[in-house]
């Protein structure tokens, strides 16, 4: 090959790299596949995963059962070794799978348009806020104070370039939206209003539909897609944009990433939407075909004026979600949602029997998780639980400081009675 190019040795190809910027790469020598595997497994063995140490963490990232069929599909190398489907004729499979994903998300959310993924729930919310800023002239985005510090921080960071301020409203004694607080804050300057159901506290908030009547600004609703099997579609509540995290739809937790940012909106706003979308069309023979569409919204065409800078998204996670939803179907998803509600109910009931513990803090419908108030600092309890082979829930102090004595406990179908009972008896011992 060098002969053909007309060079004598390989470094001639780097003659354009000036001496002054040359450097070496002081990394160790390469290892065999076997040794790499062994080395990484040795390190990973230091983890205590949820299969070894039952975990009660949630807030957007859950330990659900991943059907083997999901793994199988996303391990098809035609899928996972492909790039963004720029050439639709060579990528009909991925395009259709993503169109099906969008369709499922639209069905769950009750909206007509969805993109084929954002990075995660938090960035999806950030993008939704930015989209609100595009939809009108307001300069305030209203969101609940009951959010993790991570989500609030991401949201702030996504609003930085827009000139829009983030304003946070409170919650009521039942853990739902504090309508009075929202009322007070609503002005013409509001460019968007965000609410969650289930919210940070796991509360299914029946007041969210009431928000529609309070402002003309776009309403953004944050959801859990499994809860949507039983919950009224946000589109029917008047939501303009729906966001959420879809990791629960067939993906492992993976230490938090990749997630799956769900993003759906009304058809009328489709041209203001961020992210990649797959559209239905026809091929030259008039047959059904799919392609990426509305690309003029995107950075590779519109550059500095794109609706978002996003390029690589989490398409494969979206495919996993599509397979997961198809695997369960309506009835399966309903069963799963019920099981998760029942698991949470069971756990909160058991814990409520412990003296000095309020479980749940909010007397309301919950999904997956719920806050409990403890007589001891939650951080301290987690330390003790860790020694007994449990990963406790999320201490709320770092997120909503006024609930510093509270812990958020999440449970899923992966916790059977035995695990819950064992956890509760440990908790009882510890308190």
């Amino acid at each position, binding site marked *: 090959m060098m002969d053909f190019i007309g060079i004598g040795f390989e470094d001639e190809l780097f003659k354009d790299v000036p001496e002054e910027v040359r450097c070496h790469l002081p990394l160790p020598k390469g290892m065999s596949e076997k040794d790499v595997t062994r080395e990484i497994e040795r390190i990973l063995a230091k983890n205590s995963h949820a299969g070894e140490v039952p975990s009660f963490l949630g807030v957007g990232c859950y330990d659900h059962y991943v059907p083997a069929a999901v793994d199988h599909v996303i391990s098809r190398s035609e899928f996972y070794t492909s790039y963004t489907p720029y050439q639709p004729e060579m990528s009909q499979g991925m395009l259709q799978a993503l169109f099906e994903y969008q369709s499922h998300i639209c069905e769950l959310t009750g909206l007509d348009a*969805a993109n084929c993924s954002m990075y995660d729930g938090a960035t999806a919310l950030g993008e939704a806020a930015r989209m609100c800023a595009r939809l009108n002239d307001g300069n305030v985005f209203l969101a609940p104070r009951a959010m993790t510090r991570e989500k609030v921080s991401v949201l702030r960071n996504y609003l930085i370039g827009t000139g829009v301020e983030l304003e946070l409203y409170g919650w009521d004694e039942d853990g739902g939206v504090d309508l009075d607080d929202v009322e007070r804050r609503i002005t013409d300057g509001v460019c968007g209003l965000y609410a969650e159901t289930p919210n940070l506290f796991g509360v299914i908030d029946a007041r969210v539909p009431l928000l529609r009547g309070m402002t003309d600004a776009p309403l953004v609703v944050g959801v859990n897609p499994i809860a949507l099997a039983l919950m009224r579609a946000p589109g029917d509540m008047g939501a303009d944009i729906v966001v959420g995290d879809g990791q629960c739809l067939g993906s492992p937790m993976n230490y938090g990433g990749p997630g799956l940012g769900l993003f759906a909106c009304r058809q009328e706003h489709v041209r203001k939407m961020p992210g990649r979308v797959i559209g239905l069309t026809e091929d030259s023979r008039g047959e059904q075909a799919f392609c990426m569409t509305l690309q003029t919204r995107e950075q590779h065409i519109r550059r500095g004026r794109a609706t978002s800078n996003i390029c690589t998204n989490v398409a494969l996670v979206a495919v996993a979600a599509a397979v997961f939803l198809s695997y369960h179907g309506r009835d399966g998803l309903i069963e799963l949602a019920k099981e998760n509600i029942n698991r949470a109910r069971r756990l909160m009931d058991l814990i409520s029997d412990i003296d000095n513990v309020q479980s749940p803090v909010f007397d309301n419908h919950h999904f997956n998780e719920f806050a409990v108030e403890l007589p001891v600092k939650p951080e301290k309890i987690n330390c003790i639980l860790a020694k007994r082979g449990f990963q406790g829930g999320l201490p709320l102090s770092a997120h909503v400081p006024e609930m510093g004595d509270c812990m958020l406990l999440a449970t899923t179908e992966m916790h059977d009675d035995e695990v819950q009972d064992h956890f509760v008896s440990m908790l009882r011992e510890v308190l």
Partner: protein
Amino acid sequence: MRPDRRLIMERIDADAYPDVSGYMPKGMERGSLHLPKVNESELLRHYIALSRDNFGTDSGPYPLGSCTMKHNPKYADRLASQPSVGRMHHHMDEDHAQGSLEIMKRMEMALSEISGMDAISLQPSAGAHGEYAAMLIVKAYHASRGEERDEVIVPDSAHGTNPASAAMAGYKLVEIPSGEDGCVDLDALEAALSDRTAALMLTNPNTLGIFERRVKELAAMVHGRGALLYYDGANLNAIMGKTSPGAMGFDLVHFNLHKTFATPHGGGGPGSGPVGVKSFLEDFLPIPRIAEDADGMTLDWARPKSIGKVNGAMGNFAIILRAYAYILRQGGDGLKECSERAVLNSNYLKKRLENHYDVPFADPRKHEFVASAKNLKKEKGVRALDVAKRMIDHGIHPPTIYFPALVEEALMIEPTEDETMESLDRIADVMISIAEEDPATVLAAPHSAPVGRVDESKAVKDAVLSYRRMLSLREGSR
């Protein structure tokens, strides 16, 4: 016969939505839900059939410029599929997550060596996300110094995410043209620089595959005006072991683990876009930072100058792990060799095509090069798009087309280090045969793909993004 490609939701459950009372508060109950009803066998046949209508690097050559579609080694996937990876929650006590944290710490250190940066954050979820984090750092840095700088300079050959990220962070964009040689026109740069300049975003080698030789000079100019120099590291795979952004004088860099470090693209993602900085910017990196003390790894949240969070968790751990496995496997010498082979392959393929396609700019190229179909278009009416579509018939993924915009009818080709000479020759033979072929055949391509040429404008016009929408249009209402 083309297999059944109906949408899976056409196998829908027609029964009434069941009674689920008691599970939701009043007024929050669902009334209907249309999801497909299939057994596992139907499900798998459907999705496996779809996968067979898709093309990945495991299917054949994928010389997509600026996208680095290289082989995704299987050991990395196998490692990532263990419960000690998957069943970890990012809020776990650090004690429970020492393994994940150690992998991340080691990865930070490896990326630091590779890039010549002092500190790395693995948090961003993809390249553009890393760019955005970097722009937030630039902003926080200047703010911390009480400076108001509201412009970011971007060369016209930059990837679209660069201007988009800067704009998203609220910066005004100043675009500078490339010179005759495809490099940044330093005079134009000089003219663009001012006290308003927050940063220059640069890729080196740039998207034309050309190394900016005068990068040191350029760095001095930018730094001289108090601005920061940002490196788009998506093209790092051309220079590893030869030079580094640090050595070239850059202050910030993002990486594309899903390009340089051989992790799967997954049909569009997930990726991972770590950001690295020189020490004077370390305080601004996203939180939490991974710290190491005598007891092991801990998470440090108390970083008051930090820009905060760019995503909800710790980054795309499952991708980071794969990339780390790849780095271990290659080692320093192996990564250098990858760069050498990537560049060799690119120059070989370029040479093979030179007499058949217009290939502007001088030698040598780095990992990629841009050819042009402008002569073909003039002579036969065959555009870059047509060449691309015809390549599909030969089982070769087309190059990136119409980017960068400064080259007419651009075909941006990046063969990567994984293709053998035999495979490069096949790509060349196919592209040459297309250049010489009867234009009618080329214009009507593809002929042997699962579908004929796809009508992209109809898709835009109709904007049908869901089955729901499709039905409501079909029924006229819903």
